[in-house]
């Protein structure tokens, strides 16, 4: 599996200049209060990982990967591990940036707020990618873009409608419970989703004809 992870990181590294410019741009926007710094995380990790799928598809890597020892399984596993590592690394970067911003502005560092916001973004980023990957394995990255757009659109509409229709004042006990155990419940849900997503992707990839 590490060989496949090295490949993904080597492909990302090949675009290091663009990645560096984007990081500097986001850092600048964050420092100057033009943008919430935590938004770097979902955007950058999705862009970086999708670019690896793009390279794979464009160069017909997946067919070759199927000829390598345990190639199909390791290929899928590597994408999930690489995703987790990238999201984690960008989270560290974002935390560092948030601390620098607080320090330069001489404001009191609100650790709970910083970690809470970045933690929430971390979870939602993993969630989005867990939804996307089986679709990419099923349709390929080119066709998956449309499918992902439709799915995200449907989820957004459904979520928006639910928020409008449901009166959360009836569920005060539930929301209190969730907010109390959020640090345990949400990471657990995300890990389960990630695992479920990996299993589905693996099933698709092992049966796929190239």
């Amino acid at each position, binding site marked *: 599996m590490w060989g496949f992870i*090295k490949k993904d990181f080597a492909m990302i590294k090949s675009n290091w200049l663009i990645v560096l410019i984007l990081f500097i741009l986001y850092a600048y926007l964050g420092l100057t209060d033009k943008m919430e710094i935590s938004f770097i995380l979902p955007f950058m990790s999705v862009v970086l990982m999708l670019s690896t799928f793009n390279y794979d598809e464009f160069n*017909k890597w997946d067919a070759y990967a199927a*000829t390598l020892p345990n190639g199909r399984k390791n290929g899928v596993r590597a994408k999930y591990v690489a995703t987790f590592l990238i999201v984690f690394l960008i989270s560290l970067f974002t935390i560092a940036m948030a601390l620098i911003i607080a320090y330069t502005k001489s404001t009191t560092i609100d650790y709970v707020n910083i970690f809470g916001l970045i933690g929430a973004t971390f979870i939602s980023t993993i969630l989005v990618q867990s939804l996307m990957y089986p679709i990419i394995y099923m349709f390929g990255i080119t066709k998956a873009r449309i499918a992902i757009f439709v799915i995200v659109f449907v989820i957004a509409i459904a979520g928006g409608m639910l928020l409008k229709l449901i009166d959360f004042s009836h569920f005060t006990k539930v929301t209190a419970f969730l907010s109390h155990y959020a640090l345990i419940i949400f990471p657990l849900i995300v890990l389960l989703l990630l695992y479920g997503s990996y299993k589905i992707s693996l099933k698709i990839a092992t049966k796929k004809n*190239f």
Partner: protein
Amino acid sequence: MKNILEVKNLNKKYADFTLKNVSFTLPTGMIMGFIGENGAGKTTTIKAILNIITDYTGEINIMGLNNKTNDQKIKENIGVVLDDMFFPEVLKAQDINQIMKSIYTSWDEELFQNYLKQFNLPLKKAIKTFSKGMRKKLEIATALAHHPQLLILDEPTSGLDPVARAEVIEIFQNFIQNEKCSILLSSHQTTDLEHIADYITFINKGQIILSATCDEILNHYAIVRCTAAEFKKIKPEDYLKYRQEKYNYELLITNKKSFKQKYTTEVIDKITLDDLMVLMIKGVK
């Protein structure tokens, strides 16, 4: 192990193409040339052998092991070059080395570097700057650098100039010096196959129409060129296919010796694999 590769009754159906009961065996220590026109089923057969396609019927054994149930063990011991380029072009040869080091347990870094030097391939340049021939050479170096027992090569010499082709052919010949090693080689460069192949397997429209030793084909098969009048005198059972040219007839015969004993006047030419392919595909009976 008598046969390193056994393909038995391989069937695969597409909307516009069918692979029908493809069967052949590659004895250990031999090179098999796999020939046929474009779209005949060579790549599909190779993809099935390598499990790149999975929904086929039939049985494929590599090194005595079923290819579906022993995937990892088999793939540790085979080297592959596919028809299409497959390395992400933003990578460098040094990246390929790092990647493969973690994929193959028997990856030989020194051997890989030696091949790169031999092929004049730069370590630190992105693959996208390589010519088609250079990319093929990198793929061949990668296929060889983990000491595989079986090489499965789909058009490995396409895009190579004659000098590079000769270089690669020599490498294949050296590879086969180890009697445990074998090569299945699909190629349109039939002159190369005449030099190195021990066996020829010919596929046409998804079916194997000939699988024999190269010597048997080149020594026993032949082309008879004759006039229309001479052609009328030849019995149909004495030739396999014929082709009407502008001024003469070309006949594919399978037993040069017995034909010579029966008919004395016709011109009998030595056959090449190109001639064989053309007459088998375009010829009639």
